């Protein structure tokens, strides 16, 4: 065999980079519209009374969450896997025709499922369960896409040259297994078209409708075991996989501690799943589960901070890079937001705090400092690092990236601070009593008072979206510029006169 460096094949990675950008824009744009609908309800009718059904807050809300989770984030996870996977396993996708076809099929089926999901959510076809809104035909599609991802991943692992799995691969494997388990069990449902009436009629009603296998409290328990851990295995685990690869690569520093990564990984795997019940505090779920959920949520600080501190210490002695490189800024702030968000979550999971926080905007704020500050920043960092390498071109503009960093950071800060104030204000007003023991405020009082914070949140979201459009433009210009080798060489010897 000829002894030359491996030529990695980024065909599939490029495809998923594209959907990361496009679905990111779609999801965030819908988010901004939703934010302004709460501040200015007239926007619900933005396309007129006839189309109000489709521009309405409640119809759009699942579209926003699903577009950013299953669109933006999952695309980012797939794109980085098809990049990182080859490099840390020291094997090219070009070496296996089968794996290449599986990868491409994975992408195209993913597109079909996304299109079906968008269409069905606009039409109001939903099971109502958060982040599991899809009805059974789409669920089957999701499962097929996920199996293809698994085949792709384990296939590549199977033909690897580097025998030891790098830390990022641990996290990608966990992502695959975790989502597979959660999604399957939470979406157990019976299609109602299978029913037969006493009169012998079959196939009654919509063919796509189904009914959950679980009822009431059990249904809630399974849903939040899923809902919380979809956050774990969609928003935490694969993003940690990314930072373990991209931060050392971009900074040229080795991971600070292998032992700390071991502790964080296995700790996160064991602890995270217990915490789902913190979405159900003071509900009708058995008390011992609520207590377990609170306790484990607090313990969860350890493995989460383990990863984040490991990342920050990786920069030890190299902090001047934070000032010099906007990309390092993004990643360092991402791990800082990860620490911040994983401290805020456990605080909200303490029962007495949850009594105020639950059902309010503080929860929305918590989700967003996690996803905007941590997930969004990290996925964009990954793509910024990948773009020059997969397209073999210089990054279009570093100063645009730096401007984007500050605009988005400001956006995130406006977002979570306004939601803190809004959430705590509303939580306190709901429970306020006057000196005679009567409720101090009617419900609408606790809504109108939030108006200024809803406006600030909308502006924060808009700034983040503007930053994301700058990111998209930067990537587009990078992609469409002339390749490096075609350009005039800067330091070439002048042609002899």
């Amino acid at each position, binding site marked *: 065999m000829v002894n030359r460096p491996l030529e990695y094949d980024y065909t599939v990675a490029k495809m998923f980079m594209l959907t990361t950008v496009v679905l990111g824009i779609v999801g965030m744009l819908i988010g901004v519209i939703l934010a302004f609908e709460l501040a200015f*309800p007239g926007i619900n*009718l933005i396309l007129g009374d006839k189309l*109000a059904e489709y521009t*309405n*807050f*409640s*119809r759009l*809300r699942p579209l926003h969450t699903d577009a950013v989770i299953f669109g933006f984030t999952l695309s980012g996870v797939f794109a980085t896997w098809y990049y990182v996977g080859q490099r840390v396993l020291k094997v090219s996708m070009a070496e296996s025709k089968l794996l290449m076809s599986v990868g491409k099929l994975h992408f195209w089926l993913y597109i079909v499922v996304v299109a079906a999901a968008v269409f069905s959510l606009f039409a109001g*076809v*939903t099971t*109502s*369960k*958060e982040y599991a809104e899809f009805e059974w035909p789409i669920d089957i599609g999701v499962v097929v896409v996920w199996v293809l991802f698994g085949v792709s991943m*384990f296939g590549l692992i*199977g033909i690897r040259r580097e025998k*030891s*799995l790098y830390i990022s691969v641990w996290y990608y*494997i966990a992502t695959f*297994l975790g989502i597979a*388990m959660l999604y399957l069990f939470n979406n157990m449902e*019976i299609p*109602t*078209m299978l*029913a037969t*009436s006493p*009169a012998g*009629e079959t196939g*009654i009603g*919509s063919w796509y*409708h189904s*009914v*959950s296998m679980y*009822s*009431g*409290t*059990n*249904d*809630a328990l*399974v*849903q939040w075991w899923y809902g919380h851990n979809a956050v774990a295995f969609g928003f935490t685990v694969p993003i940690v996989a990314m930072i373990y690869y991209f931060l050392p690569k971009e900074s040229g520093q080795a991971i600070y501690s292998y032992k700390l990564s071991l502790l964080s990984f296995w700790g996160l*795997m064991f602890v995270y*799943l217990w915490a789902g*019940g913190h979405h159900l505090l*003071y*509900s*009708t*779920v*058995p008390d011992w*589960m609520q207590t*377990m959920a609170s306790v484990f949520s607090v313990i969860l600080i350890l493995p989460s901070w383990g990863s984040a501190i490991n990342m920050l210490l990786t920069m030890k002695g190299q902090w001047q890079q934070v000032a010099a490189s906007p990309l390092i800024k993004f990643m360092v702030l991402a791990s800082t937001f990860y620490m911040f968000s994983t401290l805020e979550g456990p605080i909200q999971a303490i029962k007495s705090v949850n*009594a105020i926080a639950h*059902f*309010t905007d503080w*929860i929305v704020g918590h989700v967003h400092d996690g996803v905007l500050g941590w997930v969004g920043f990290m996925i964009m960092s990954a793509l910024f690092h990948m773009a020059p390498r997969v397209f073999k071109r210089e990054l279009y503009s570093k100063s645009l990236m730096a401007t984007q960093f500050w605009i988005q950071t400001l956006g995130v800060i406006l977002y979570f601070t306004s939601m803190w104030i809004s959430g705590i204000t509303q939580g306190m007003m*709901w*429970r306020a*009593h006057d000196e005679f023991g009567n*409720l101090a405020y009617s419900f*609408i009082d606790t*809504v109108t008072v939030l108006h200024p914070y809803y406006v600030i949140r909308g502006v924060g979201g808009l700034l983040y979206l503007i930053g994301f459009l700058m990111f998209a433009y930067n990537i587009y210009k990078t992609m469409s510029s002339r390749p490096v080798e075609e350009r005039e060489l800067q330091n070439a010897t002048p042609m002899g006169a």
Partner: protein
Amino acid sequence: MFHWLEKHPFFFAVGVFLVIAFAGLIEILPNFAQASRPVIGTAPYSTLELTGRHIYIKNSCNACHSQLVRPFKSETDRYGHYSLSGEYAYDRPFLWGSKRTGPDLMRVGNYRTTDWHENHMKEPSAVVPSSIMPAYRWLFTNKSDIETAYAEQLTVAKNFGVPYNKPVSMKDGSSKTVKMGASVAEAKSIALEEAKVIAADMRDQDVKDAVANGQIPEIVALIAYLNSLK
């Protein structure tokens, strides 16, 4: 051990799976052993109520309204008795929600009327000044899908033993039988009878005419569902 696992992806994956599946086994299985049992006074949804529940879900009402009263004085003062597990026995899916942009609806049937909902859905801010809830005017023209609700009734009666056409004990010691049709045609006529009762309390002439002609606008089914929440 860890170094060995990192060189053996299969065993690594098995290890990860066991570690993440553990919590689910401990937390979820025991609760399933004692399946949801209804409390006295909880009856299955009628055909029209279930149709309304589908409309509630279709429009993601649960994105802004919870159906879970927590055991705090401030909540029981505002919404009524705190929720009991058995009250949700026939809720597939559960609709507790996770955000209260609007008030809780667990017992809205106790303090709002058909008339109130009709006006409110047409123009929320006309009933609750400065409300940020959007209007749901298309519910007055869209027609309800009774057949799907009927198919769901058949499914839950067969698979989960939901007691349709069987007497269910009520709080006052009486019993109530929720009827489920023997055919699509009968299910529709049962739903229409229920719809007539609701439409009688409504003002919208188009809705009244539609019901008189045997059609059920979505708003009628939705109000039937909201009135059933007690």
